């Protein structure tokens, strides 16, 4: 009889232990791209286990969905996509995962780029224009200000999925955004402005008023970070292989004179290469951005006729062992372009 009472007494203890274990259980987050994994890790800290499906060296448009990916997603609590028709292959993975939590319309599925101001929304949607993205250019993460929004979106979703740890996610979001702001504007400027400095500077930068606003307040000498480094190449014209850099170039004051691809997704035909050579020589364009996953043949050919520098670019976290954070992706691009612009 006594042993039965003892067993009964164990029940609440077991329930309590179960609750404790549940509270300690990490959210499993599967992301399509590696920059999303990085943001999830920054915001989710030790409350999440995040994994990215794409190989960071790969063209994010052309990832082959495989059973391994489907199985990874089969027990995910959250599936995070870039959206904007970039990682279209994600739908195959979500469908084949058999995981009801991450199907569209559920809290466990999210498009991370919601609320990001999109560029290059096509006025005419037709395949005659190549592989265009009907919802706008999807390479939004190459503008650090957009990554702030993406991090907010991810934090909001983590808070909904794991409300007991809301404060934790909010605090980590703040820290991540502070780090981005310091990398973008420099620590001195942030300190000089004081409260809500990041929010104010981000809005001014987004409205193209930052320079004037800082000058009016005699704060322009305190600007540092990526934006200060980017002043070395402000106004420089360049070519890119694909329409990858509109967000990056708009943010850091570069001008894109055109793309090597005649139309998105279609390698440059010979006659288009010649037209580019003529344009580059005429406008004295000396930089070609060539994503690591595209062939360098066209870039090298054009460079040989124009004395241009071909900058091999990496746009994903982890594309090389050295570029293992989002901040390093942007630093790499800024440094390499500055070097090529000399």
């Amino acid at each position, binding site marked *: 009889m006594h042993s039965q009472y003892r067993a009964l007494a164990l029940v609440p203890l077991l329930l309590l232990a179960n609750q404790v274990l549940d509270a300690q259980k990490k959210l499993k987050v599967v992301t399509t791209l590696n920059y999303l994994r990085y943001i999830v890790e920054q915001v989710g800290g030790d409350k999440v286990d995040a994994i990215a499906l794409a190989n960071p060296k790969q063209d994010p448009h052309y990832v082959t969905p495989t059973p391994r990916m489907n199985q990874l997603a089969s027990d995910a609590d959250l599936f995070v996509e870039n959206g904007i028709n970039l990682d279209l292959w994600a739908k195959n993975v979500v469908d084949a995962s058999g995981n009801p939590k991450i199907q569209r319309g559920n809290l466990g599925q999210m498009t991370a780029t919601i609320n990001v101001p999109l560029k290059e929304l096509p006025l005419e949607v037709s395949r005659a224009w190549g592989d265009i993205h009907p919802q706008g250019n999807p390479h939004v993460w190459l503008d650090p200000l957009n990554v702030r929004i993406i991090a907010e979106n991810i934090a909001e979703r983590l808070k909904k999925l794991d409300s007991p740890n809301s404060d934790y996610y909010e605090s980590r979001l703040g820290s991540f955004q502070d780090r981005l702001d310091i990398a973008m504007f420099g620590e001195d400027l942030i300190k000089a402005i004081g409260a*809500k400095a990041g929010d104010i500077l981000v809005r001014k930068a987004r409205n193209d008023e930052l320079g004037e606003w800082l000058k009016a307040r005699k704060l322009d000498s305190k600007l540092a970070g990526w934006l200060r480094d980017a002043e070395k190449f402000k106004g420089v014209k360049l070519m890119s292989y694909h329409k990858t850099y509109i967000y990056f170039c708009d943010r850091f004051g570069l001008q894109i004179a055109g793309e090597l691809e005649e139309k998105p997704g*279609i390698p440059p035909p010979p006659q288009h290469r010649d037209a580019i050579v003529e344009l580059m020589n005429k406008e004295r364009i000396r930089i070609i951005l060539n994503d690591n996953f595209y062939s360098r043949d066209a870039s090298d050919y054009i460079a040989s006729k124009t004395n241009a520098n071909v900058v091999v670019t990496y746009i994903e976290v982890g594309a090389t062992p050295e570029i293992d954070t989002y901040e390093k992706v942007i630093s790499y691009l800024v440094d390499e372009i500055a070097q090529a612009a000399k």
Partner: protein
Amino acid sequence: MVRTSLCIAVAFCGMMESVYSQEKDATSVPYDDLKKEISLLRSKLDSLTSAQIVTGFGVAGEEGLERLEKRLQELERKVDAVSRSTAAIVFNPRTTAFMNVAARSDNLKVLDATGEAKIDNRPFLRTIELDFRAPVDPYAEAVAIIAIEDEAGTGFAIDPEEAYGLLKRLPILESAPLGMKVKIGKFRAPLGVNNRLHMHDLPWTTRPLVVSKFLGTEHGEFFESGYNPVGIDFDFFLPNPIPGTTLEMNADIVKSGELALSQGGETDQPAFIGRLNLSADWNNEHIVFLGASGYTEGGPSSTSLFGLDLTYKWAPSERRAARSFVAGGEIFFGRHTFEDTSFAQITRKPYGGFGYLQYQLSYWLYVGGRYDWVQEPADETITSRSWSFYASYYTTEFLRFRLGFERQQNDIQNLNSVLLEVNFVFGSHPTEPYWVNR
């Protein structure tokens, strides 16, 4: 002054919302205007915030600013949501058309599988497939692929190539055991790999002989062939002891008698299909699939089929659009037992298979070859062999030209054919991985 500006800004916000609701269905230009307007508002808000930082204007002012901030955020979200949608058509199924045209030139007279239609030395609009798919509700998605197929030059037939609902979850079952997906309807059965591909996705112009002869065909391997019964398919992951690999299983119950090997021996009993697929993927560069499939049906005459398949795909991480390699093969062993007109038990045990290679030379150009051998299901003593070589030229993933040579040899004759094929894909094509990387 600050309060007046606040009032103006809040009033402007209200006005903006009504403008937004009126412009909801317009093109993206009004959205851009809206975004610019919101941007201006943001700017005003920043000026007010700065004024607050410098001078301070009390709790009421701060609350006003917060309200304005929230209002702006709401507007930004709405504009973003609208710019991502496309008005009333969003609930229509995504529609894609696949159109395949092929011509052949032969050294001999060629008849289709029925032996009635002459098909040598002429062009054919082999198939037009219309692919519709959309979510049904939060629990299911539906796919209907309607094929208008050439009847070997004698006319066209309209057939549901595939039409099924895919159950993703149920209100009473929030999580599926083993990641199970359930497909109900008519679908290309999980017997090997090739049978699941549609004609427009094939790396060759003709179906492998074993697929058309063992699984199904109406007019022969030059026309759409394969096995697509009506039934139910359960697709799930199995616990797997081999690290780094994925083990999946399909278990199907389908209408019997439709497999070519069963020669129309339909019964009231269902047929059963099982498939195990073991796969491994290294950085999305090297992918290997090893599969085993089985089919069985009972009744007065019984049919069973066992198949093995192996596929290896390679595509580098960098320059992925320009280089790839695929090698694979499938082999099937059939068994069909029936009574002949004298009530004697006859058992046929034919087997057949094929192997192939394909290499991508550039973004546009693929070359490859295939070897087939197969015993006739009705008479194992008759064997057919085939060698074929192809070059495929893609302008994009939506338009492909293919030129091929095929030599088919059996105990009676040697048939040499030159095949030319053009494939068009248009519409909002579903996100299927087209064959290797297109």
